[in-house]
């Protein structure tokens, strides 16, 4: 059915088109039917709890010039990493990588503390160790200049940050409602929170529970309107396996990002433990604040998240 110059006729074109569309439609329908149906978006739990059940609260403070040694001593004193990390588990380490600052400026967690934790987790049998944060500054710069990206990778962790790391919806309670959380959170079996001790003009101190700001998506600036309550609610919404407070250096003014070395004090200490409130109270005392007069610590105690008394932590002294 060709005409003179070998071109297809209109009829042929129309039949061809019809045949193609019917085939494509059938294939599409088949795909739609056979494809695994995603149900309604999986609702994340209202709160996240990564604690090892049945553990009595414990904590220890180690002092000395080498941050990695401090980490090892503190962890050993509370029973060793094997007590907290099971074989084959996925561990998320959440340092404070908020700012495009050098380690010496004490705006971020010390990279050696993070790297040592990565090594301890891997040695304890963790299948994967993830290091992630949502920085306030450009993520690439923050992870590089803080030294945490290179140090964690070298220690064997996988490092995640935006733009490749996104958020997922989470039905968090109270003042946190409507905020999304870091997409890695639901995938982690264990989470270690690794804050650095810093001054903060509104909360007066930014420590472990405040460090959970870094797993929240957009909209988190509005939490400052009732900061003490918000920090305590963060502590209730995210219950870590371990909290490791980095006080290798602390930032005593111009927090939370500082800049000047005049605002940095060399405290050369690391504390680790399972009571986030006691550890925050210890960090606050380093900033010469009375822990129980800090709104967020009092609020956290009231919510039953721990004790605001830093004396519950075992002092290991200088190595």
């Amino acid at each position, binding site marked *: 059915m060709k005409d003179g110059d070998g071109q297809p006729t209109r009829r042929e074109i129309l039949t061809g088109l019809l045949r193609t569309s019917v085939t494509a439609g059938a294939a599409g329908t088949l795909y739609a039917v056979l494809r695994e149906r995603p149900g309604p978006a999986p609702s994340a739990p209202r709160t996240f709890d990564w604690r090892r059940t049945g553990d009595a609260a414990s904590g220890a403070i180690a002092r000395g010039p080498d941050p990695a040694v401090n980490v090892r001593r503190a962890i050993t004193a509370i029973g060793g990493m094997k007590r907290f990390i099971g074989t084959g588990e996925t561990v998320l380490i959440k340092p404070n990588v908020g700012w495009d600052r050098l380690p010496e400026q004490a705006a971020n967690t010390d990279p050696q503390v993070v790297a040592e934790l990565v090594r301890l987790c891997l040695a304890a049998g963790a299948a994967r160790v993830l290091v992630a944060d949502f920085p306030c*500054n450009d993520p690439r710069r923050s992870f590089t200049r803080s030294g945490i990206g290179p140090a964690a990778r070298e220690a064997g962790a996988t490092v995640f940050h935006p*733009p490749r790391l996104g958020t997922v919806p989470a039905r968090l309670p109270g003042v946190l409602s409507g905020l999304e959380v870091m997409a890695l959170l639901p995938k982690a079996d264990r989470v270690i929170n690794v804050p650095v001790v810093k001054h903060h003009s509104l909360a007066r101190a930014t420590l472990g529970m405040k460090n959970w700001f870094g797993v929240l998506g957009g*909209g988190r600036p*509005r939490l*400052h*309107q009732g900061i003490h309550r918000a920090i305590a609610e963060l502590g209730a919404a995210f219950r870590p396996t371990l909290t490791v407070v980095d006080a290798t250096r602390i930032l005593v003014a111009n927090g939370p990002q500082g800049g000047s070395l005049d605002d940095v004090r060399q405290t050369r200490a690391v504390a680790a433990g399972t009571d986030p409130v006691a550890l925050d109270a210890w960090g606050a005392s380093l900033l010469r604040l009375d822990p129980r007069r800090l709104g967020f610590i009092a609020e956290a105690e009231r919510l039953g998240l721990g004790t605001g008394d830093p004396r519950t932590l075992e002092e290991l002294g200088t190595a």
Partner: protein
Amino acid sequence: MSWWRRLRLLDQLVFLAIFLWLLERLAAGDTRALPWAVFHHADPLTAAGLALAHHAIPVALGLSLAVVLLTLVGGRIFCGWICPLGTLQELVARWATPRRLRERLGRNRWRPLYRTKYLVLALLAGWAILGSLQTGLLDPLSLLARGLAGAVWPLLPVRGPVPGGWLAGALLAAVILASLWIPRLFCRAFCPLGAFLGLLARFSLFRIHREDGRCTACNLCVTNCQGADEPLGDHRIEECMVCLECIGDCSEQAITWRFSPGRPPHPAIPDLSRRHALGTLAGGLVLGPVLRVAGGGRTTRHADAIRPPGAVPEDAFLDRCVKCMLCQQACPTGAIQPALAQAGVEGFWTPILSMRRGWCEYTCTRCGEACPTGAITPLTVERKLGLDGGEPVRIGTAFIDRGMCLPWGMATPCIVCEEMCPTDPKAIWLEETVARRPDGSTVRLQRPHVDPERCVGCGICENRCPVGERAAIRVTTAGESRSPAAQMLAPRPDSSRKGTGTS
């Protein structure tokens, strides 16, 4: 496919790939000092435009001399073998090639419309003489980079939205898709770079040569002709893109590309009436000032035209910026956006910072590294932050809108702007106060103030302010370092507040 057709396609794809790879690396924050602007540095239209408008050519643009020489030797090889926008059009045109030979011949015949590009060039030259560099509007390299940065990269999940980008993307799409109808319509009819190279190509040493005795006037040479330069008749040398398709398509081996200098070109002058050309140039000379005045003029300072750090003073900036938006592609936070009306008519599609889209990262100097023409001068981190003993580079100053600010207007605690402020000591300081709430109770508040001597206008405060899409703290160009007229503070003999750690 003849071997040189394959060779040319391969060559074009390599150049296109390099162009795209550089853009991708720039957006990905590659820390190597790659030659981000190498294509723009090889662009003689940019060099000529800067010579007319700025009366100086940055050294890096010396690379364009290579393209000038290439054109004087072999004609518009750049158009047919290098230009990535030409390649994209050609790929689309190849895909849409009609099967009927007669239609293909029709699409590749010369049309009077193709003279338009010389008028475009005359218009842009007229504006450039007046000091308004607008070549970037239609320069193929700027047009492509801008369209990709504004409308293609934002589609990737890792890049933020570009509110003004759709317009640049629409022009790019129109240019590329027009080739469905007429191959390389933009190159043939509108490209000012093509017109400029065409004028040079009239003197080229190598050119298409036809053996009149062998030619049977079959027209086959037009079948795949990229430049619509009619090798069958009197060859239009300034239109030829040296694609050499005619050589392979000629069944009589009548066409060669060979060394034949000094032959008079056809037509003897560009195919324009002198009246048209001079009229366009004169029109440009008149229209330029009209548009400048209509856009507010150069003496008017635009509050929202916050230029990237290191940008030269506005007058010089408009003489140099070729609107390629490489700076936008380089910006890690997405703050740099193409201006629509914020910078006047002349400043259309020049880069400005939109602090709700991003902010100027304190230690970042990427935009100046990418800028091909020195409209944004490269800065060291020390120079930008004032660590070298000088004043830091300010791109503007933040102002608090007390009616919108939570502690000022609504007796609600908030210190986000202060927390984010990167300077040391912070340019935003807090004043402790006790305020009354509607129910009569009191609340302790810290109210933010901006210290204009310390603020560098980076805008992270505006970016993170929790109040609505319009922030309660906003940056304007007031106080920007590059403009003496923008200084609001009288210089102080006592500079005790400079330096660090003295709060």
